[in-house]
């Protein structure tokens, strides 16, 4: 009950008799307790403490550590499939769809630096996926080149007629080639506004300005383009109606081509293949483990038709 009481400021002991609250209010002589005058705080900072003082860097100056390569997961815990098993699931997901409409697609995940060179090339698959490509050729009309282009299967050939059609907005083709003689006229015609955003503008860099138009058209018609985006190369690799052996041949050709491109890049850019994923227009993405068929799964004949 009568616990000793202390003044909170100077921790000097008080008794109830000498409580300042109960002193007469007339004499208000407040004496500063002696303990306070001597209570000068000195921060005793040793050299050691200075050394280990926490440095609070303001948030604006803090450097966020960013990765220089794309994150690729460790595949030892991944569920992977042989080609035939993957095709069985994909064929089931695509049941009823037209066999030429749904496409298989392959995604190659690469271990690569984020800001390096990218893999970009064209490839003729053993079993082409899309065979109805409309190609436009800009060449002087009534020239041998124009005739060769038409013979190879170009859909739209000419110079002025093509320019007017494109300027009007009638872009009824999927690819565009230009003969070297017509390049000057092409630049003057200012078609970059229409064709540029669609990726159709012929240029020397994309190998779409050619001398031998006939063979270029033939090559383009059967070729599939691929390009690395954010560490992944994706390409359509087959139609739903294809069998397992055909798909395997296409996959081998594609992977070999990408490996050759990666090896052909400069030695500074180190790229290698991390994961191969097979998917389709309406199906799941299944990681492939390199086998054709598994022992207790189906054989390729038992896969049947789409």
């Amino acid at each position, binding site marked *: 009950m009568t616990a000793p009481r202390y003044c909170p400021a100077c921790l000097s002991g008080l008794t109830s008799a000498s409580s300042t609250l109960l002193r007469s209010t007339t004499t208000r002589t407040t004496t500063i307790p002696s303990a306070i005058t001597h209570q000068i705080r000195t921060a005793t900072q040793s050299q050691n403490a200075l050394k280990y003082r926490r440095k609070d860097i303001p948030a604006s100056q803090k450097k966020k550590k960013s990765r220089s390569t794309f994150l690729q997961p460790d595949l030892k815990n*991944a569920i992977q499939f042989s080609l035939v098993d993957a095709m069985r699931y994909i064929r*089931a997901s695509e049941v009823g769809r037209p066999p030429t409409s749904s496409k298989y697609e392959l995604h190659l995940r690469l271990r690569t630096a984020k800001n390096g060179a990218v893999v970009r090339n064209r490839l003729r698959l053993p079993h082409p996926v899309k065979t109805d490509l409309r190609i436009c050729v800009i060449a002087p009309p009534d020239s041998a080149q124009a005739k060769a282009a038409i013979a190879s299967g170009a859909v739209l050939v000419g110079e002025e007629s093509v320019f007017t059609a494109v300027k009007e907005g009638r872009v009824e083709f999927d690819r565009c080639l230009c003969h070297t003689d017509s390049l000057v006229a092409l630049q003057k015609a200012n078609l970059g506004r229409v064709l540029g955003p669609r990726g159709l503008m012929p240029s020397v860099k994309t190998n779409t300005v050619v001398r031998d138009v006939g063979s270029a058209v033939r090559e383009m018609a059967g070729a599939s383009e691929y390009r690395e985006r954010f560490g992944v190369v994706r390409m359509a690799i087959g139609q739903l109606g294809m069998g397992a052996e055909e798909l395997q041949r296409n996959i081998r050709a594609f992977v070999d081509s990408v490996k050759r491109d990666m090896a052909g890049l400069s030695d500074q850019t180190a790229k290698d293949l991390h994961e191969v994923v097979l998917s389709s227009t309406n199906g799941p993405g299944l990681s492939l483990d390199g086998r054709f068929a598994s022992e207790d799964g189906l054989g390729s004949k038992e896969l*049947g038709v789409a």
Partner: protein
Amino acid sequence: MVSLPQRMRKLQTKLLAIRLGSGALVLPHDVARIHMRFAAKINGGHRGPRDFWRHELVRLKYHNPTVPMTIDRTLAATDAAVMEVHFSAPRDSTSDTPPTATTTTSPATSPPPTRLHPLPLTHLTAPDILAALVALTKATPVEATPEERDELQMLEQHRVKSARDSKLSLEVRARQRREAELLEQARGDVATA
């Protein structure tokens, strides 16, 4: 980037849903082909066939990969939706459902005789269509193995736990976001004042 365990869980859910579920049946060997004809829009009783194609037919195709299963969605809404089941063996007398279409006789070198049985599908739901198909073909359902049952249970438990954790972390994040907003507001007031 989604982590590998998350990706694998999502994949397993999808693959188990293809292997198991309603429509996971093994058809007898005499079923040669299944062809469905219905309209592109669901008006007029074509919802059931479309749902059957998207769910049950996927599982049927997985378990019977050699049977061609095709669909044709060019009918008009007023036409009757039909599923044609082609059988390769000649009709046996013990069958309950008699065939109603043509029976082709086979000379020695031609493919085995087929008979066609059309199933009307208009205004039927997907479960009804499945029941009719099972009654016609006498298909055997696929049972889940013990490993698959365990897998399903684990995935379900994970989904429940994930939902609970998601709710909790949503509250925490909402609180943090609110504090940040108030701080920004206070800073904004000081700046303008």
